[in-house]
Structures are given as C-alpha cells and as structure tokens.
C-alpha cells in the first residue's frame, strides 16, 4: 500500500531510553483531493510516556483527530500517511515497533487496533452500530483479541460494563444503542475501547457532545480507570477546562503542526505561543469575563488548500513581526533550556536557528540563513 511506504528514515528505529507507549516522529498526512492536496499534518512529533495523559488541543482543522486516526491507521481515502514513524511499545519490556510498517489491512495492524490501542470516538450516536446490541459489539472485540470462548467473552463484557458505572449491566448489554441516553452510549463506547485493556487509549473529543453533569461523570470515570489499568491516554479536545482537569502534558496544534508543548501547569500558567495565549483568553471564565469583552483571535483558520508561508499563525497573530514571521517557519525551541516546554515562535530566541524553509512557493532570495 502506498500509504505505508516507509521513507528513508522511517526504516530505522531510534530507541530512546525512555518508556514511551507511543512515539510519533515527523508524521506527515496529506489528503489528495480533486481540489488539491490538503496537508493535514506537517511533521508532528510527540511521545506519550507510560501511564501519562497527553492533551492534544487546537481548533477544528488543526489536525488533532487526524493524528489520532493515523495511530490507528484509520486515515481514510484520499488521506495518506506520506512520511513519518509511529513507534508503539505496548508493554514495558517490548521492543518498540514502527506500526507504519504494517499494511493497514494486515493481521498485525488488526491485532494492534482495539487490542493494544483503543479509541473512543467523538459521536457515540454514530459510532455504535444501531443493529447490534451493545453487548454484542463489545463482545466482538473480546472474541477477536482475547478469548475464543463466547461465555467467557460475555462474562467479561458484562464486567466491563459494570466497571464503567452502568447500572444493571446485564440488561444494558442486551440493549440496543438507541435505548440508551447519550451519557450511557458514551460509557458503552468507553467500555468497548477498554474491553481489551489497551496500553494506549485515544479519546477523540469523548465528552464534547455531552452535558456538563454527564461530562463530569465520564471524566471521573476515565481518570479512575486510567489509574486502575495504568494505561496512557491521548486526549483530543478543544475544551480547555477538560484539559486542565485531565491531562499531564499538553500539545497545542495549529494547521497540522505542534506549536507548543508543555506540562499542563505551564500551558495554563505560563503559555508562550501567542496562539496558546489567545486560545486560553478566548474562553469565557466564570467570574473573570463578566462585563468585559472576550479576547478574540482575529480571522479564522485559513482555508486548508492554501499554504501560508512562514509561521502558519502569522496572519492572525497579535505579535506578528513583518519580514520574519511571514517568511520563515519557526523551529521548535525549548523555553529557557527546558526541553519539556517547547514553542514554535519567532518571539523566542533560537527559533530560526534550524528554521525549516517552506520549500514550495518561496520566492528565491528570501530563504533565511541558517546560523
């Protein structure tokens, strides 16, 4: 398959001494549409240490969900993973494997999907099959990955439904999705994702469609289960409140790139990238924003077909510096030597040191000197 053709560097596996469940290295995903190529991910690199919760935030169109789908190799046609590596280390003593080596339809990939890596989708309404009972759908994953014994699988199904806090799990297992409320469906989705005790759970906006009270229950539940099972979570969301409550580390994405990464404390108390700052300021906060204008980020996310030269955020940035921001793509720079807090912004020293130059559409002579 074309999308799994490893590029020159993706064949080598770079072992880091750390115990990371997943390491995504320089991931590029393009969508080849009839109207042109949409560059959904332009070199995304991150890792999730075992047992940690990583928050992935950004506006719609920033590539959050595509990142999640890429790890599952579920990026749909016309999307293709054109470059990069995804190293999965399911157990502590395993060797990391580059899952992009596997064909998306291969047996190996199926063993990973649902078993080692679970995923909760955004809309519980559309993600459950309406013509099977909830129990059937959960049992299917267990039968596929864990045990061939049907009775045993059913017992585990009821058990996992009980663990996600369903009242009367036997009855729920025999219900169809339409018989359940939104919160219950989302619990069923979580139960399904957790049924094979994955080492990584990708939660793609798991609470966006829910009411606050249900959201609180689901978040509580996820935190509890995460502690029990010891899995890592990649939490994709645009709700900063949820990020603050759930995550250990945060990456902020904008137009297919990570613009800032830091611990959750630093993101909220010491954000560096103008986009992160703007994002945090645009949410209404109880007690803070009454009677005041909300700060807005001017404009909108640019059209996905166009390419912006230089920093992709420069047309909306309040700190825009002409001559540099619109010409040079800032490199990821550690803040004050802290390798755990990095930012892609020309406001911080060193950002242009190894600046990537937009190879296409850049007028000759505007390339910066790499120092």
């Amino acid at each position: 398959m074309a999308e799994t053709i490893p590029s020159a560097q993706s064949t080598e596996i770079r072992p880091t001494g750390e115990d990371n469940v997943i390491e995504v290295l320089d991931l590029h995903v393009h969508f080849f549409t009839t109207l042109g190529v949409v560059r959904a991910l332009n070199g995304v690199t991150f890792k999730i240490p075992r047992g940690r919760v990583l928050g992935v935030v950004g506006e719609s169109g920033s590539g959050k969900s595509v990142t999640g789908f890429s790890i599952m190799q579920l990026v749909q046609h016309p999307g293709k993973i054109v470059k990069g590596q995804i190293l999965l280390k399911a157990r502590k003593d395993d060797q990391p494997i580059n899952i992009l080596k596997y064909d998306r339809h291969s047996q190996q990939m199926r063993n990973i999907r649902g078993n080692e890596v679970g995923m909760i989708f955004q809309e519980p309404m559309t993600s459950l099959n309406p013509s099977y009972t909830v129990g059937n759908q959960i049992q299917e994953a267990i039968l596929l990955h864990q045990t061939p014994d049907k009775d045993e699988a059913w017992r585990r199904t009821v058990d996992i439904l009980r663990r996600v806090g369903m009242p009367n799990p036997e009855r729920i297992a025999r219900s169809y999705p339409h018989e359940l409320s939104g919160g219950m469906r989302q619990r069923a989705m979580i139960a399904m994702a957790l049924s094979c005790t994955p080492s990584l759970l990708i939660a793609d906006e798991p609470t966006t469609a829910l009411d606050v009270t249900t959201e609180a229950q689901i978040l509580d539940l996820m935190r509890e289960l995460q502690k029990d099972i010891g899995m890592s979570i990649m939490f994709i969301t645009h709700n900063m409140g949820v990020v603050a409550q759930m995550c250990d580390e945060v990456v902020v994405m904008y137009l297919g790139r990570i613009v800032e990464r830091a611990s959750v404390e630093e993101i909220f108390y010491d954000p560096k990238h103008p986009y992160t700052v703007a994002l945090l300021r645009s949410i209404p906060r109880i007690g803070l924003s009454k009677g005041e204008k909300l700060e807005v980020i001017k404009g909108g996310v640019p059209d996905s077909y166009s390419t912006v030269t230089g920093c992709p955020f420069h047309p909306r940035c309040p700190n825009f510096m002409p001559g540099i921001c619109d010409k040079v793509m800032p490199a990821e720079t550690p803040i004050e030597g802290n390798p755990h807090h990095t930012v892609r912004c020309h406001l911080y020293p060193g950002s242009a040191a190894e600046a990537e130059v937009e190879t296409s559409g850049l007028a000759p002579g505007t390339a910066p000197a790499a120092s």
Partner: protein
Amino acid sequence: MSREQTETMMESQVNPEDVLLEVKGLKKHFPIRGGFLRRVVGQVKAVDGIDFYVKKGETLGLVGESGCGKSTTGRTIIRLYDPTEGEVIFNDPDMGQVHIEELDSKGLRKVRQNMQMIFQDPFSSLDPRMTVGRIIGEPLLINGVAKGRRLRERVAELLTVVGLRPDHASRYPHAFSGGQRQRIGIARALALNPKFLICDEPVSALDVSVQAQVLNLLEDLQTQFDLTYLFIAHDLSVVEHISDRVAVMYVGYLVEMAPVERLYYNPKMPYTEALLASIPKPDPRNRARPVRLPGDVPSPANPPSGCYFHPRCQYAQDICKVERPPLRLVGPDHWAACHFADELNLKGVPRLGESAVLRTPSAASTIQVRGRRVTSEQTGDGEARTEQPQQPPRPPQQ
C-alpha cells in the same frame, strides 16, 4: 403555594412597564402514540408549567441539561410549537400587549417582525440552494419591507453589521465557515429590526475562538440596537458571560431563577449547585470535584414523584419524594424551587482570584523577544501587548 401566588409575586418584583415578555404557566406536552390505532398512550411533558419574565434590554440565560425543555420553551414562545396551556404575553412596540398563544397566522407574522430566533446549527439552518443575499433578504421581501435596490442595500448593511462583507451576498452558504454562517443567521434574524431575539444555543456548534467572536458580536448588537435576548445554552460559562439573569430548567420545570451573580455564587437549589460543580475548571491546580451528580436526567414522559430532582439530590428528605416544591422567592429577585432553599448552605462557583490564569502579567505581557525583554504596557482591559521591535530582529537575507 399555588401558581397564581407565584405569578403575583413575580409581578411584585418588577415594574410591568419594563417587561418585554411574560410567560405564565406555559406547558408543552407532546403525545406519545402507540398500539394498533396509534392512540395516545402518554405525554412527554417537555415544558410543564413555567413562569418567567424578560425585562427590556436584558439577557435572560436559560440553562439545563439536554432534554430539560429549554429549546422547546424557546420554540413555544415564538409559536414554532403551539403551547398546550399557558400564556405568552409579548409587549410589542407596535401592537402593544399581545397574547402570542392566541394569535392567528397574520398576527404571528406581524409579531415575528419584533421577535426573531437564532438557531443552533449554522449548517442546517441556512438553505443551501439560496444565496446569502436571498437568505437575509427573504424576511424583508415576505413582509414587504423592501425590494429591489432598497433590499440589496439593506442586505449589504446587515452583512456589514455582523462583520461580513457586502459582496458575500452573492455566495452560497457552503462557502462559509461555521462562525460566518452563524453570522449570516444573525443577520437574517436582525433583518426586520426585531426587539427580542431568542438565541437557541447560538455558539455551541462553534470552535472556542469563533465562539468568542460571535459572543462579542451578540453583545455589540445588543447595545447598538437595544435588543433583548433569551439566551438558551447549556454551557454555563458562556451563559454567565452574556446574561444578566439566569433561569435553570430541569425536566420541564424552572427550578431556579436569579440575577447571574446570585445564581453562580449563591445558588439556592441543589441542582444548580451540582451543575456549577460539574463545570470542568480551566485550572490544572484545582482538580477537586466536590459534588458528583449520579444518574441521568429522568425522562419527561415518566418523571419521578415529588421534586423531580430528589433521586439525584444529596440533600433529599422524605418530603421531597412526596411534594413538589413550587418556585418561590428566596431572596431579592431570586426564585428557587426547593423545600430547603432557606436552610441549605449551597456552594456556588469559587470566587476567582485564586486561579490567576492569564489576565496576569505573567501570561504574555513580558514576552522575551529574541533575548531582549520587552515589557508590555498593561492596558486598562487587561490586554497585554508586546511592543514591536523597531526592526525585525533577523531580517531575511536579501
């Protein structure tokens, strides 16, 4: 206490001249049909007797979980649904006091010039086969307000008012982003210069940054055109931001109504407390979750006995299972439906100040610009600005 008493007490709280909309005992029941003859086998009591008023120029927020009847309330007020029972009295600037529940289609058309609605989903509420100009111009045409050149001018003016460009009028809705579509919906609602807008979750389908833009726009328009809003939403921080007073609904009933400050800091109904406690706080240093509301919202077709909230209420006593508490006055302009509203000491949201995220200088006001510290001036509205360096620090080589 009977409903009539509640009503009279409500009237005592406010000067009738200031009231733009008054809702008395409004009910909307949807029949459940079943069996061979499609007989009515039950009623979904989506809205089951609510009383409230909206003052001129204010924003009343209406919050609650999904299925509590808040959208039905909005739709019944503007007669997209016919009410089962109750009165909706609108103080029309042209027609005087009108009972909306009694109006015929001609009267409705007239009153809807002053009462408009903004819908939740900007993707399904605009006709994909009409240009934006026609969408916004349609109410003007139908009501015979303008046509021809006047119409085009008015559409251009409306587009400018909501922050779009007049030349957008010739495009189709698919060419716009979610936030822009919501602006189109707002322009359409404003076309006839209404006095009262029912905003049904106008920002919940939008991204955070776009949400802020639309909220600011709604606030600007309110001052500019002297509008009154009924703002239906489930996001409590959005409601807090935009509302003057807030009403909380639970399974078809109003359970609390108060000025925003009182409701958020000093709630009198355990359900409000639980709602407020459920908001995920955007502060990683504050991860406590004091009240966790168990269970789900009961079905309005088969509600529990007594106070509908009692199965989920941590303060429930025996009386709560038997008797439904009426909405009563518990403080200045503060209404609550709880037997123990006076005794309970409920927690609102914590007073901010402790979670000093942003708004503080540390956030962005001192941004290191390439090694040089540039201290920003802290402007009055707390906005931090970074000085632009005189020259780009690293000009690209020519």
